């Protein structure tokens, strides 16, 4: 094979046998380093791409969930309101009474049941005396403790009764529902039982029965419950005396707070 002047038969330049090998080794090493750097750069690029992709996917999932849940909770602002209510409140008593008592309660709430049992008579007396105007404000906070949506069904039932038969019937049904209050995490009063209680209080007829079964004021119960939450009501019962929360919920505490508020004028 043709050989250059300084080459022996192995093709290696004679006289400098180690240098070419060393140079070729350096070339090989540099190439290997470039491969490694290129591979590392490619890996880093892949990592960044997959991290950004993952972040985008997570963000999309979160946004989709937010949109879906927002739709599910949008309470129709034009949901029918029952007659004889004002902004979710069933108001009894003299309009010019010196003290206004707001009573937020859930029909499934045991603490509300205890409050009613202890203070029901006192409240009735105060209304009859003209000392207070009493605003019942039922909410449906506790459906998660009911296998059959009792909070909502009870609240809807009293709304139907007030709508069809007036506030006296409402008060009778309200009191009876607390007298027969079911325990949490047990089936609540059935629709039939609610209809029977309504009939006993004077709310009779097919329209009442249909309103109770079909949850006629279901949208209203959602809107009122949501509004209560926006008005900083987060526990039941919440009792406001002229806007101030009642801390001592015993009959003595209630009476004292009402009298103090009446004195202030």
């Amino acid at each position: 094979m043709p050989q250059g002047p300084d080459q022996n038969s192995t093709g290696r330049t004679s006289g400098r046998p180690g240098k070419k090998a060393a140079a070729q080794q350096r070339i090989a090493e540099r190439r290997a380093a470039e491969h490694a750097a290129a591979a590392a750069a490619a890996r880093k690029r892949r990592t960044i791409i997959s991290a950004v992709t993952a972040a985008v996917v997570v963000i999309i999932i979160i946004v989709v969930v937010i949109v879906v849940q927002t739709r599910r909770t949008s309470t129709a602002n034009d949901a029918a309101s029952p007659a004889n209510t004002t902004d979710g409140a069933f108001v009894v008593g003299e309009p010019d009474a010196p003290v206004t008592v707001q009573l937020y309660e859930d029909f499934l709430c045991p603490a509300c049941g205890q409050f009613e049992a202890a203070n029901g008579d006192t409240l009735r007396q105060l209304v009859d005396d003209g000392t207070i105007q009493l605003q019942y404000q039922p909410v449906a906070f506790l459906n998660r403790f009911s296998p059959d949506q009792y909070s909502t069904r009870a609240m809807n039932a009293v709304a139907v009764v007030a709508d069809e038969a007036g506030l006296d019937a409402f008060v009778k049904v309200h009191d009876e529902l607390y007298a027969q209050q079911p325990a949490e995490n047990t089936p609540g009063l059935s629709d039939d039982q609610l209809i029977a209680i309504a009939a006993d209080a004077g709310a009779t007829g097919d329209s009442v029965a249909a309103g109770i079964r079909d949850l006629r004021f279901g949208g209203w119960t959602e809107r009122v419950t949501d509004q209560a939450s926006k008005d900083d009501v987060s526990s039941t019962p919440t009792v406001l005396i002229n806007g101030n929360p009642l801390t001592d919920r015993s009959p003595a505490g209630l009476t004292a707070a009402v009298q103090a508020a009446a004195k202030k004028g």
Partner: protein
Amino acid sequence: MPWAATVIRIGLGAVWVVAGALKLPDPAGAERAVRAYQLLPESLVQVMAFGLPALEVVLGLALIFGVAVRWAAVGSAALLVMFIAAVSSAWARGLQIDCGCFGGGGEVEADQTAYLSEILRDAGLLLLSAALVRWPTSRWALGSLLSAPAADDVAVDPNPHDTLVGQE
């Protein structure tokens, strides 16, 4: 250590998935729970109430399947710090709420708040998350499959015409 990390990883992931999933069926309740803390302006209440459970489920799944474990552990720790701060704030202000951590509307019957136990529970989960950040390597993790070196990582000669030793 890897087996302990595996148990922690999967357990923590399950807690997150359950916590998030329980909040999804009752969005109105979740909204009330966030509002009850009185920490966020009304405009952000729905974003937090609806976005947080989704994030919890995603985090939980990442941990269960062992994908991006260190990131998920960091996210888990960050969320838990946020929860501890929020519950502490509610406690300090004397609010009467249920933490709403596992669903529910945040309302509680009067005088039945349980702030201390909630904080202790979250602190325990925070320790587990921190441990995962420090020692993320575990068994049965999908992530190790997904980040295995690809075929083109093996060195390919970009210049086939260069001569190599012994080929003259």
